[in-house]
């Protein structure tokens, strides 16, 4: 058993080619096909991008941030790519880059004016663009910062909006993993729901 063989270079090339083709079939066709179909069958919603529907209309993906400009909505984090999922990306600006300082200053002033707060009140995540430009979450502090403005625009009592925000603070997953966070799209959909009931 296990005798040593000495293949020629041509034999190696032929075996290499046959091995490449065989493994292309096993990994590229069998694996990708089976796993993708199985995942789609077991988790149909997640497999297609976790789209949220309202009245049978696709209103976005749970995991993709949307731009909000109407003061009656909570705003997402700033995006380096204009919230375009096809262009997804970060700013890639280094801390030493003057362009980053300029951008943060502009955003900070905008938020100070919009929310009537001091610079020192603004949570970092509201000024920083995320890695993919599509972060669906903001920190609980960033949500609370916006409560007064949203309540005023919707003519709701601040405590009512604050209670709603509190309901939408997701704790670390399974109590262990990740940070406390608020999904902006889900929170805004719930706000619209309140408005509907009020009518």
């Amino acid at each position, binding site marked *: 058993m296990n005798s040593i063989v000495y293949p020629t270079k041509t034999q190696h090339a032929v075996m290499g080619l046959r091995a490449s083709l065989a493994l292309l079939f096993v990994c590229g066709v069998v694996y990708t096909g089976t796993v993708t179909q199985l995942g789609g069958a077991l988790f149909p919603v997640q497999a297609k991008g976790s789209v949220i529907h309202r009245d049978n209309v696709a209103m*976005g993906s749970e995991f993709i941030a949307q731009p909000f400009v109407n003061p009656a909505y909570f705003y997402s984090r700033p995006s380096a790519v204009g919230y375009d999922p096809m262009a997804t990306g970060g700013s890639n600006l280094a801390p*030493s880059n003057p362009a980053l300082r300029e951008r943060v200053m502009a955003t*900070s002033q905008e938020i100070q004016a919009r929310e009537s707060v001091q610079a020192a009140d603004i949570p970092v995540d509201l000024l920083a663009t995320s890695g993919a430009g599509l972060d669906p979450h903001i920190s609980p502090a960033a949500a609370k910062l916006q409560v007064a403005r949203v309540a005023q625009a919707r003519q709701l009592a601040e405590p009512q909006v604050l209670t709603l925000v509190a309901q939408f603070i997701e704790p670390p997953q399974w109590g262990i993993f990740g940070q406390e966070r608020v999904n902006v799209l889900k929170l805004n959909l719930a706000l619209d729901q309140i408005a509907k009931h009020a009518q």
Partner: protein
Amino acid sequence: MFEITLIFTTALGLAWLLGSYMTGIFSGQSHFSDRLFNPIEKWVYRAIGVNANSGMTWKSYGAAFLISNLVLGILAFLILKFQHLLPLNPDGIGPLSWDLALHTAVSFLTNTNQQHYSGQAQLSYLSQGFLIVTLQFVTPAMALAVCVAILRGMLGGLNNDSAKEGEARNLGNYYVDLVRGVLRLMLPLAAIVALLLTWQGVPSSFDGAQKVNTLDSASPITEQIVPIGPVASMVAIKQLGTNGGGWYGPNSSNPLENPTPVSNAIETIALVLIPMAVVFMAGGMLRRKKFTLMALVAMGLLSVSFLGATVYSELQPNAAFAGLSAQGPNMEGKEVRFGPELSALWASFTTQTSNGSVNAMHDSFNPIGGLMTRSGMLLNAIWGGIGCGFVNFIVYVWIAVFLSGLMIGRTPEIFGRKLETREITLLGSLLVLPTLCVLGLTAITVAIPSITGNSNPGFHGISQVFYEYTSAFANNGSGFEGLGDNTPWWNISCVIALLLGRYLPLFLPLAIAGMMSSKRVSPDSNASLKLESPTFCFTLIAVILIINFLSFLPAAVLGPIGEALQLATMSLEK
């Protein structure tokens, strides 16, 4: 902190289990997995045309490795260059330019996954789901095969008991090791991880992109195109195979590629699992459990200290935010669901293991964080890429054995076999290689500003170039992504770094192990060097650090260290 510890220890625990499984499948003895896999493998061996019971010398093994890579590389180049003529291209994506196709083919062939193209926009479903996924399975298995052959060679090969001094040694059969690595190790793990990720929200479908409306009708865009595809299957092997090339441009920071903290924990564990398991496997294959313990201590100490420095760095505020926000960590380029600590953990693991996937943008890290990630890549032996990481570690062990031998005045030997002039010459060339390649190419590129394509000025601009070549040479693939790197110069110079950084550090150690395997074995005595001792472990860590400090400290001063000092002065002035 608790979560980091939990992920780290879970990964180590799983790696311990997986390591003994891997020892089993590569030992050549019968194994419980035979009943399931033998019938499948019989078909694959027939398709390849290999006799599974034959073995190879180190020269045949090396030739098989190099030639199979050449063939697979040519295939990959052709598919990428002519993807517009091939099926499964619903979005009508055009061909890649020849230099981009060459860079992409070599980048994935070398288990690097450095991407100069932009994710979903420039590759067809066939190129991504069929070609790249296959390369992501096959290339780590190829390096693992070479690593396994080197470990066999260190003990004199499979025929050590019967062979005489100077007789050809059987290091195993390359194709058998390759097929076993793919079928028994990578495929089952990837399938499990892919399904777990889909459960958490990673898309898994052959349908086209989903069109959705936006909620705020006043916003500048009224609809979004949400790209999906067979994402989960690719992300799973991207993480497990120290590959790193993701489906979406910004990799696992994209919420569809890494939707929840639980998916992040799974992907982080998958990132280090096999590289850690190789360390356990090595102890099993060398029949020296204490060698594994020594390696774990050396790697663990370095890994944890780099990790600690990165976490500390990212918990500090970003200098550009001074006076404009509440106190907080550096969140530029990071996701809220992960926060700074999990981003730093991922960044540490991904650069230590030569994976290169990211869940936050390294370009926007604070300078010390950026320095730590680069250090992890330059060492490329703390866990390291699958197979090649542990081979690099063995190279450091050989060098430490040589130096220790000089210090105690004995002929350096490892497991009873002498390290002599021929081996030391090859080791020497392996030491010079990274400096020559990474710093040489960085110097040329920085000297000609019109070809650098920087997006950041000053020290950070040098850092971007240095990072790119480091990442290419270390076969890592992460980048300071602001760099405009899809140009003929960047593509071709990176191809050089990729090839040198992959094939020499795998082939030369195979040659060394092969040459040593047929040497006479001197019996263990009281005077021989104890590889498992704390003294040797300390020597080894010192050797790793000193070699790399000497090589790269000046370049680091011009890059991240200069930037850190600059930021410190700026904040003093404010």
